[in-house]
Structure formats: structure tokens, C-alpha cells
């Protein structure tokens, strides 16, 4: 996933493809047309599987739907071939949403199985609905109007569509949607906490991919000139799927190369065609074990760049004020009478807490006392049995994705980041809800998309400068040290210019120097008017920065007050601090 892609590889590939007809070989042009048609489908599926991480193995069902829709509309004389393609796209979008719906509820393997089942159903319907689809005999594919009805004309048409799909998916990849998709894939919890609605985003992507797949189906029917249900094999589905995994997730170029490779391979190894599926599967197995990142990983230069040694994280707390300015007399975040149980375990047994803007409120206590659980309730991951959280008079309800709009941001006990994305891309995800461009505007690279990107990037750079790790902006996040990841999470949280910042053990694993700088940073954030809820075990940090401290024990408040009161509190000392 990279936002500033060199266009060169794509230009080379498409220029070479456009020059193919000059070779004068009809067979090569046929294979190239097939690769282009497959890519139209795979480019959309790539967003679902490669970016979204949804293992839709049975996607051939959409190819089938597109092929039959186009063919039926043309054969019945209802529409010309090109308008029929548009109708097919609509049908594909709807079908894509239906296939994708289980993804919101089912776990990975179940969803994969469900898509396989769906593919079977579509084929059975095609077989049985003889009146419309011709049943087993099939139906003639559409013929496009001149000059697209010649082999060359059709090839260039498919090539143009393939180029268009490449461009569209590149736009999505380098947008807040693409980043959020990958975020849902690799760090679902964190991404939701930043305001991304999983169901909305996934459904949008399924609609889009479904439409592309159906258009590919119409093109496929034209290419074959006649379609029968047995042309839509499980092998084809697996081919699409493997092309993406071989190419590498989160990449556009990788799956493009993968698709070309897998279309050409059976032709080069024609004598071995009986073993072709076996070889594909073996190739997939090897890739999964040896090179899970696929071709894209091989091409990714950032992995190999040497990072400077002895890096220091030096935040610039003085810049915080330019980012966040909040009035201090805004409503507080109030937890009242909170009760939360997991089965028989009482995680939170009656808690009241007030987080005022411009104040740092510490939350300490032994392990298992309910500190992180409290944060999770505020974030919306758990619904309490009794009591609740409100901002001012407005109660907080709904899932975690509603919190970002209220200006609530957080970090996590273990850093949750997207390893293969760059640091700045990770940070930009924090601002996803601030984007204005719709998905359609992004796909077509309309001006609002560019202004969104510019705004988000500028904002992210500012956050990184505040944190002090701007030198690592373009490095892959999985190369960062643990402490750098912790600070990166804070940068990500700052993207929202939050009213309330929830920090879950931000000092864990930090060196003493880094803890000191963290403290200065938190103070600056407080000074800017943000209310900070700090869950920590490092009591020095707590007593240094906090204005108020609440001590939890066994889900209940043990003591609350100023740091000096807490430090002297007898029970706190015996239960937690030690004397």
C-alpha cells in the first residue's frame, strides 16, 4: 500500500500490451484479451480479498451472473451490447452485496465456505432456468457494435477497460477508503475505534467489486462467443483468488502481474494441462509458506532500506497548541453507575468517573481491576448492563465507530498497527472520518478526493512532527521499534484533534527518557484543552502528569482524588502501590 506510486510499471505494461497486435499473432491477442478480461474482475476482487482481507473464494458466481445477464439482454433483443454491460454491472453490484453480506457476521473460514456455496447456487440456477439461460445448452454471448466486433477492436476495448480498472482501484488504494480497508483487515479493533464503519465500507467495496466482476462476465461471454454453465468452473474461481495472493495483498501491481502470469502459464505448459490445477495449488502453497507477501513483497523496496540506528523519539510538545485548540468549558465525559459483567465475572462493579476537558485523569489499579475494560466501554466495544457513559447530557450509544465523530480517540494496550503500511499511512487512518469525498468521487479521482488526500497527509505530517518520528514517515510500520509504535498510535489519535484522548498504558516498554518526553507531551495535550484519561502502571508518570487519579480494584473504585491524596491513601498503598 503506497500513496505515491511510480506510474512507470503500469505504463510499461499497458504500452507493451497495446503494442501486442503488431506481432500479428491472433493467438497472442486472444490470450492477452483474456488476461485483460480477468484483470477487470480481479482488480475489483483485489479490493475485497487483498485489501479487505475477506476470503471470497467463490467469486466466479459474479462472473456467471454478469455473463448471463449481458447475454440474455442481448439475445432477447432488449438492449444493445454496451447498455447490457451497464445493466450487468448493476446486477453484479446487487449480487456482490448479497455475497458479501455474510462477511459482516461470519468469521473467515465460514465466509469462504459461504461464497463457495453461493457459486454452486448460481451455477445450479443457470442450469435449471432453461427458459432464460438456455439451461445446459447455454446461450450465445453478445456481439459488440463495430468496430469492437473485430478481434483487434475487442482487444483494445478490453485493454482500455483494464487500464480504467487499474486506475480506479489505484485511486481507491491511495485513499482513505483503501487505508481503512487494510485497517479493518489487519487492525480491525483500532480501525473501528477511529470511526470506520465496517459494514458500510465493506458493503461499498462489495458493490463496486461485484459491478466490475459482472462487467468482466459480459466481456467473457463476448470472448467465448457462447456460454454454458460448465464454463464457470471452480478452477476459474481459484485462479482469480490465487492471482491476488501471488501478487500480494494491499497491492495493485502485484495482482496485475499475478493475473497475467496465471493466464499465460497454462498456455506455456500446454502438455501439462492435466496437472495445471495441481501446479497452481502447489504454487499457492509455496507462496503462502515461503513468501506470504507475494510478488508485491519482492518489489517493495522499503523493506530493504536501512533504518538509521540509535533513533530517538523527540516529541515537540510546543506544536500541539497549533493542532488542537479546545475551549475548556465544554461538557465533560461522565461515567455513572457503570456495571459490566462477562458471564459470571463482574468486570466493572459500579464505577463513577468524570473526565473534564483540559484535565489529565489517571486510572490505576492492579491487573484485572477493570481499567482497560473501562476504556473499552467508553470506546463502545462493550455495552454495560447498568449505567452508562455520556458527554454532557448526551448518552453514548452505538458501536465503536460512532466515537470518532464525538472527538473521542484512543490508543491500545498492545499497539495495533498495519505492519505493511507506512507510518504516515497508519497515521492518516486516524483522520478517516474527516474525509469529505464519497467513494464514487474517489474512484473517479474527482477534485474532492485530491483535496481530501492533501488535507489528510498534511495533517498526518503535522502529527508526526509533534510526536517527533517524522523521519520514519515512509517506512513500513512493522520495522519500527515498540516504543516508536506506541508514539505512532498517539499521532494517529491526534489526527482527530480529539476532545477526549484515552491512553491505554502508553508508557509500557518505554525507556525512562521516553517516559519523560511522553509526560511532556501529555501535558501539552492537556494544555490545548483535551481531556486525557490515562491508564497506567508507571506510577511516577501518573503522579507527574495527572490532575486527578481514580484507583480501581476488582472493578470498583477504591479511591479517587488528587495524586498526593492517593499516594498517602492507606488502602491504595496496601492493595497496589506498596509501602
Amino acid at each position, binding site marked *: 500500500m503506497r500513496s505515491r506510486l511510480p506510474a512507470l510499471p503500469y505504463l510499461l505494461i499497458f504500452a507493451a500490451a497495446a503494442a501486442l497486435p503488431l506481432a500479428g499473432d491472433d*493467438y497472442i491477442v486472444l490470450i492477452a484479451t*483474456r488476461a485483460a478480461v480477468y484483470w477487470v474482475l480481479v482488480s475489483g476482487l483485489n479490493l475485497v480479498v487483498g485489501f479487505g482481507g475477506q476470503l471470497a473464494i467463490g467469486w466466479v458466481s459474479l462472473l456467471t451472473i454478469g455473463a448471463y445477464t449481458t447475454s440474455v439482454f442481448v439475445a432477447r433483443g432488449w438492449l444493445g451490447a454496451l447498455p447490457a454491460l451497464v445493466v450487468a454491472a448493476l446486477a453484479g453490484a446487487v449480487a456482490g452485496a448479497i455475497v458479501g453480506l455474510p462477511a459482516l457476521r461470519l468469521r473467515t473460514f465460514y465466509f469462504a465456505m459461504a461464497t463457495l456455496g453461493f457459486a454452486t447456487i448460481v451455477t445450479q440456477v443457470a*442450469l435449471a432456468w432453461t427458459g432464460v439461460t438456455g*439451461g*445446459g445448452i447455454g446461450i450465445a454471448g453478445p456481439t459488440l457494435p463495430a468496430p469492437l466486433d473485430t478481434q483487434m477492436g475487442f482487444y483494445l476495448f478490453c485493454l482500455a477497460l483494464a487500464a480504467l480498472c487499474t486506475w480506479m482501484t489505484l485511486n481507491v488504494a491511495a485513499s482513505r477508503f483503501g487505508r481503512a480497508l487494510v485497517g479493518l483487515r489487519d487492525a480491525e479493533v483500532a480501525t473501528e475505534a477511529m470511526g470506520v464503519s465496517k459494514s458500510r465500507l465493506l458493503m461499498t467495496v462489495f458493490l463496486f467489486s461485484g459491478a466490475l466482476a459482472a462487467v468482466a462476465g459480459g466481456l467473457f461471454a463476448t470472448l467465448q462467443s457462447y456460454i454454458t454453465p460448465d464454463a464457470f468452473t471452480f478452477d476459474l474461481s481459484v485462479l482469480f483468488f490465487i492471482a491476488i495472493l501471488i501478487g500480494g495483498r494491499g497491492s495493485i501491481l502485484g495482482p496485475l502481474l499475478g493475473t497475467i502470469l496465471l493466464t499465460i502459464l497454462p*498456455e506455456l505448459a*500446454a*502438455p501439462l*494441462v492435466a496437472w495445471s490445477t495441481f501446479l497452481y495449488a502447489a504454487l499457492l502453497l509455496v507462496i503462502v509458506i515461503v513468501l506470504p507477501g507475494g510478488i508485491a513483497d519482492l518489489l517493495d523496496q522499503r523493506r530493504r532500506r536501512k533504518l538509521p540506528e540509535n533513533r530517538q523519539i523527540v516529541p515537540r510538545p510546543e506544536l500541539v497548541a497549533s493542532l488542537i485548540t479546545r475551549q475548556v468549558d465544554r461538557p465533560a465525559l461522565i461515567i455513572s453507575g457503570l456495571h459490566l459483567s462477562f458471564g459470571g465475572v463482574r468486570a466493572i462493579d459500579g464505577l463513577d468517573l468524570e473526565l473534564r476537558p483540559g484535565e489529565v485523569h489517571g486510572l490505576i489499579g492492579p491487573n484485572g481491576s477493570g481499567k482497560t475494560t473501562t476504556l473499552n466501554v467508553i470506546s463502545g466495544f462493550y455495552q454495560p448492563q447498568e449505567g452508562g457513559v455520556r458527554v454532557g447530557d448526551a448518552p453514548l450509544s452505538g458501536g465503536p465507530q460512532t466515537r470518532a465523530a464525538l472527538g473521542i480517540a484512543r490508543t491500545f494496550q498492545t499497539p495495533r498497527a498495519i505492519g505493511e503500511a507506512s507510518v504516515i499511512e497508519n497515521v492518516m487512518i486516524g483522520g478517516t472520518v474527516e474525509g469529505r469525498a464519497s467513494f464514487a468521487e474517489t474512484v473517479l479521482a474527482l477534485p474532492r478526493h485530491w483535496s481530501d488526500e492533501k488535507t489528510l497527509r498534511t495533517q498526518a505530517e503535522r502529527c508526526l512532527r509533534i510526536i517527533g518520528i517524522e523521519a520514519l514517515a515512509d517506512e513500513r510500520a512493522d520495522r519500527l521499534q515498540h516504543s516508536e509504535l506506541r508514539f505512532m498510535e498517539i499521532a494517529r489519535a491526534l489526527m482527530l484533534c480529539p476532545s477526549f484522548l484515552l491512553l491505554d498504558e502508553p508508557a509500557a516498554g518505554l525507556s525512562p527518557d521516553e517516559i519523560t518526553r511522553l509526560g511532556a507531551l501529555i501535558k501539552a495535550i492537556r494544555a490545548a484543552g483535551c481531556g486525557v484519561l490515562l491508564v497506567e502502571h508507571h506510577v511516577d508518570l501518573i503522579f507527574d502528569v495527572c490532575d486527578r487519579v481514580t484507583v480501581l480494584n476488582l472493578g470498583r473504585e477504591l479511591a479517587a482524588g488528587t495524586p498526593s491524596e492517593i499516594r498517602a491513601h492507606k488502602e491504595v498503598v496496601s492493595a497496589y502501590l506498596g509501602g
Partner: protein
Amino acid sequence: MARLGLNLMKCPADFWEEPTLLMTRRHAMLASTGALLGTTPFARPALAESGPILIGWLAALTGPSSAPAIGFDRGVRFAADEINAAGGVKGRKVEIVTRDTQGDPTKAVNAVQDMIGRQKVNSIWGPTNSGEALATTAVMARAKMPNMHPCVVDTLIDPAKYPNAFRIAPSNGQWDDAVRNYCLNVLKVKEVAVVGDTTGYGVSAVAASVAAFKKDGANVVYQAQIDATQPDVTPDMLRMKNAGAKVLVVWSVATGMEARLMNERATLGWDAPIIGHPALGSGDVRQLLEKPANWDKVYMAGYASCSYDANGKLPPRTADFVARLAGKVSLQDSSLWWVAAGYDAVKLVTDAVNATGSSTSEAIIGYWNGLRDYPGMFGTYTWTPQQHNGYPTKEVVMSQANSQKDGAFKLAPGYA
């Protein structure tokens, strides 16, 4: 004929370079792979009229339902080797360009384009599978490639739209006619149950069959598609029996399902005849029968050329052919008609070149259009510019399934 006689006098070992003499199914794939590896993947230069005669062979050699292609393949290779051993055609050798399409229409379209554009074959035999043929017909028509194929779907042959495409085997309609004819006029039964599998062929064949039965005044008491993997067919058989069916018409290549139907018929103690698709008589079915007696009263569409008469003899032309095959081509696990058809397919091309002196597409198509009662091993073909279904309906007969010997069958009772 004299040339053939001469061949018989040569020592069999001279004919073959390969060490394996008997081609069985296991080795068919390896042998064809060997032949394929000899094929250049690169484009050939344009061939003069003096180079080898290239016959493209689109074979579903592996994948589901590969038995027919494997059978055809044996006939194809035998013909090519026989012709080349006799010096070829006007000095030109015959070369078979095989592509295994696995029954996949996508691979078939790719393969056809390869054969037309790069391998520059003179004619194409195949594909063997209707789904593939439906996709490749248009491609071959555009290139005016002489095409002979054995696929049964009726719409594949259209002399106006596809003047280059010829059918060597009966169409599904001809099979259907023979079966229906036998049922109504020989067995003299009007209550029929018609079933097929759930593939494309099964669905369409049943629909066509039912329509034709009704038109002829029969009473179709039951019609259904049965999933080929369904493990127990008792409910279906019971329903057919209870509906009063006196004969069971089966349209399917799924040998597993057909064997189950026969086994269940025996279990129920029902003696209705089972008639239909030639696959009913295949060796695969025999293997799956619980008792050999379950194969009694099973009659399927067959061919006069590959049927034993009342004295147990094949027609002279076929008997001669079988004698030539002895020791070189195994018929135990295949059907004679496949081997015969594959042989004829090659001979039809070489005879065209021989007769016209040219291997251009016009020459071959023109020759085929002019054939009247051409004496093939599989059938006596007649093609005209208006009629590209060359197999004579009167040579489609009904065979008795349990009489399989060396790939051929006895005529069903009631045939003269």
C-alpha cells in the same frame, strides 16, 4: 483396400517406435503427453502444400468424462500411424496436433486459436464435449477451418452459419429417435419415465426427449433430473414405479448414477427395461453393478457398424478393422465406436487430400460436401452442402448393454 492388405503382411513391430504396444487408458495420457511435448509451442511458418498434413485434435483427455476422448484418441493415433507407415499421403506425413482441453470451454477456445493461428493446422477434429464445441464453433467458422466433430447438441450444425463444421456422429435427436422408436414400436410400451443427470446435457436431453415422446403420443408418467452424486436412488425409482412407468429412459454420461439405477431396479424386483444413452453400456457401469444380472434388459443407442448380428459377427468392414487393431489397441475398457470414429476422422482428412491433391480448407470442405455413402469404419457417411449431419439414421440401432465384447455390442432384441 490393397494398401491395407499389404500392411497386414508387415511385422507389427515395424509399425511402432514406442515400446508399449497395447494402449490402455492409463497410458493414453502419457502417450499423448509424449506426442504433445513434440509439438512446438511457437508459431510455425506458413507451410507449403508439401509439408506434413496437420490435423488438430481438441481432446478432453483428462478431467471429468474423459472416456470418449481417450477412445477417439486411440483411433486417431492408429490411423495416423497406419497411414504414415504406408508412406503417408502423396508423400506427405500425417501429424496430429493434440491439445488436452479438459472439457473446459475456456481452454478449448484458447487451444483452437493456437491451432488456427500458430500451429496452422489443415483441419480440426473435435472438440469432444458439447459445451466446448458451442464455444469453439464460432472461432473455427471465422477462420473457415474444416471441422469434424462428434458432439451431439443439435444446434452445433448449421450449414448456413457454419459451412465449415461437419458432424460425424449422430446428433442427440438421432439418438433420441432411435430410443423412442425402440420403446414405442419394438417394446410397444407407452408409459415412460424420463430421467437425466443435473449437467447441461442431462437437462436439455431430457427436455427434448420428453417433448418428442409426447408428440408421438406416449404418456410421460415421470420426468426428473437426478444429481449424479446422489447416493441412494430408491425414492426416485419408487416414484417411477408407482407412477406406472413401464420403461425407464436415461439420458446421462454419469456412469455412477446409471449403475445405481440398475442396482436399485434389481433390489425393487422391477423388471422394466432401461434404455437410453450409450454410456449405459460402458465398462465403468459394469464395474459398479452389484450383480451382472442387473445389466439385463438394458438397451442403449448403438451403431450398426459396431454391433454383432444374430450370429455374433460384426459387419465385414468393422471386423476387418478390429482384426487390424488386434494387439495394438485395447478395446477392453473402451468402446469400439469411439476408436472407429477417431480413425474415420483422420481418414476423412487424408482421403480429401488424396482425392483433391490439396490440403487447403476449400479443398477439404468441398470434398466432404461431395461425399455420398463414404465407407467409414464407424458409419456410412453422406454430406451435402445443405446437410452436415453425416451419420445415417438407419445405422443408429439399439444395443444390448450386457453383451459388450471387445468394445462392441449385440443388437437389442427386436432388431432384424
